[in-house]
């Protein structure tokens, strides 16, 4: 980065433009936060009186599961992969938890849900890491397998009914003190762990290394398959947390619970500046990306856009943000 910075031409407007561009490139969080603030201001203009503590609380509550699913995508994308099985894994975890709580009690049910998710992640990791199956295909195929198995499971446990344990209900939809959603108690430690882990831990750096230059990583003695197996297990566990939180919000669980959030999760990571080609990005951007997408949805609803127009604008804005981003980062 520093060597690129010295190449910025001196003098007048170009230096200003270069500095501006450098700021955007080196500190992507600043423009992203600017965009977020802009959207919030736009929402307040569009529908005055919306922005109050309760709104902040409900926005954060909705953004947290998306940010967790975005974490799966961010980590996978850093290695040059993608995890499209997060939707089914998250739904599966929530569904197992909800259907087993009545039989086994909340804690064993939760453990079972996480165990199933970890198993799914392990299979993904073995496929991608050892058998070198393309991540898109591996996670997509495993998603199909899990969906089918869960449909069979659903018939088996049809008499169980779904119960959301009180603790999950509290985490998912409760608020503490005035307005802060309780899911922050879970999310803040996870987020800090991911951000710090990516920056300071060996595993975090290996993720970047494998994604940035797999050959160089292999020649430096990195066993890429171990990194990938670890990554996909972690990704599935994060998805399971997201699914269980969503179940806590909507207070029920179904096999299609999380389907709608998979592509927005990829979008959150992309908007947040993580490159789908691997080796570049970070988690703090994804969190802002998830907030941007959540606020954007509220804004479009506040403007009374019909569902159809909302979708169109949603897509157009993702392309626009990604295009601006790529332009800034690529020109060096």
């Amino acid at each position, binding site marked *: 980065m520093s060597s690129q910075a010295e190449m910025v031409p001196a003098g007048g407007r170009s230096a200003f433009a270069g500095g501006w561009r450098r700021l955007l490139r080196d500190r992507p969080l600043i423009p992203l936060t600017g965009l977020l603030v802009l959207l919030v201001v736009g929402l307040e203009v569009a529908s005055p009186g919306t922005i109050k503590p309760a709104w902040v609380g409900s926005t954060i509550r909705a953004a947290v599961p998306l940010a967790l699913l975005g974490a799966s995508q961010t980590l996978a994308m850093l290695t040059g992969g*993608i995890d*499209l099985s997060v939707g089914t894994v998250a739904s599966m975890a929530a569904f197992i938890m909800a259907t087993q709580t009545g039989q086994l009690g909340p804690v064993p049910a939760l453990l079972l849900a996480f165990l199933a998710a970890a198993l799914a992640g392990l299979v993904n990791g073995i*496929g991608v890491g050892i*058998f*070198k*199956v*393309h991540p*898109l*295909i*591996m996670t*997509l*195929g*495993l*998603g*199909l*397998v*899990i*969906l*089918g*198995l869960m*449909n*069979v499971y659903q*018939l088996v446990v049809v008499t169980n009914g779904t119960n959301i344990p009180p603790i999950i209900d509290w985490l998912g939809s409760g608020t503490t003190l005035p307005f802060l959603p309780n899911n922050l108690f879970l999310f803040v430690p996870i987020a800090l762990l991911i951000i710090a882990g990516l920056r300071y831990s060996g595993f975090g750096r290996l993720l970047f290394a494998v994604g940035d230059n797999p050959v160089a990583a292999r020649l430096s003695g990195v066993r890429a398959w171990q990194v990938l197996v670890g990554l996909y297990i972690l990704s599935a566990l994060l998805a399971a947390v997201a699914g269980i939180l969503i179940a806590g919000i909507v207070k029920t669980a179904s096999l299609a619970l999380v389907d709608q959030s998979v*592509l927005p999760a*990829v*979008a959150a990571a*992309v908007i947040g500046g993580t*490159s*789908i*080609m691997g080796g570049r990005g970070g988690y703090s951007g994804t969190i802002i990306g998830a907030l941007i997408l959540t606020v954007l949805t509220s804004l479009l609803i506040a403007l009374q856009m*019909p*569902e*159809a*127009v*909302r*979708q*169109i*604008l*949603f*897509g*157009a804005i*993702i*392309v626009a943000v*990604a*295009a601006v*981003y*790529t*332009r800034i980062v*690529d020109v060096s």
Partner: protein
Amino acid sequence: MESRATDGPNLPARLRHWAQRNSWTLALLGLFGLILLITYIIQPSYGASELRALAIGAMPLAMAAVAQAIVVISGGIDLSIGSMMALTSVTAAALMKNQPEASVAIVIGVLVLGVVLGVINGTLVVITHVPDIVVTLAMSFVWAGAALVVLHTPGGASADWLTGIVSGSIGSDWIPRALVTLLVIVGVIWIPLRRSSAGLALYGIGSNRLAAFRSGVPVGRTKVFAYMLGGLFSAFGGLALTATTGIGSPVPGAYTLLGVAAIVLGGVSLAGGRGGIAGPIVAVFVLALVRTDLTLLGANSNLSTVVQGTILIGVVMFGSLLTMRRAHG
């Protein structure tokens, strides 16, 4: 891509060469035949009308797979194919319900719409430099939203002649008309294209972008061309949906991702530059027939999803194992 033995005098050698180049597709055809045999064993009454139903059911996905195959061969990927199919399908259905007499013009118009959608996708990929997967993912929202604008709930109608060209059979009872229509449409467009310089350019930018650029291939324009063909075949897929169901539905089916599955099964490399169109089409029929078999066996219909996913992963693993062995030995 490989040099053709056009001047080779002896036919057997050329035949062998052809078989070698198409070994994956031929193996898939063999697999299809095997599964067909199993189908007869399970259900001795499985006959012409069931084959027709198979061809009709497989047609939309086959078109989606062709669209995806062309884009992937050129080194991209189009995650908006399912949405483009929904948009073209509802447009056709809605217009044909209101003006049944103009159905020929409507079909042509819908195909042009597909071309325009594809050109927009491709142009965005080329001018923004954003990875294909991100652009087309975002555009899938746009096209699905547009489909909802056209028709909020499933509805519309299909012209009689359009339904006619996918139902029934031609000549013998055993030749489903849907299959013939599919092969004619794909063949008329793809075979001349593949032999042209534009077709070669598609493979060129897919296998080595820089080398293609340095050999004078207009990379950007070829990429837009690939997405345009993807849009065109998505429109054919949308029309096939309308023709086979008689209505248009604004909710995109799983055609994008199933299409990716089919092309990988069909021997197209996701890295670009390798594979063809025949393999993916055969793969679509293999997947459809496996689902039929599971239904015939009385298996829980959900298990067919499991089997599809397992086949997908298994075949790709097998393929990559073969590649690894070749690389080592």
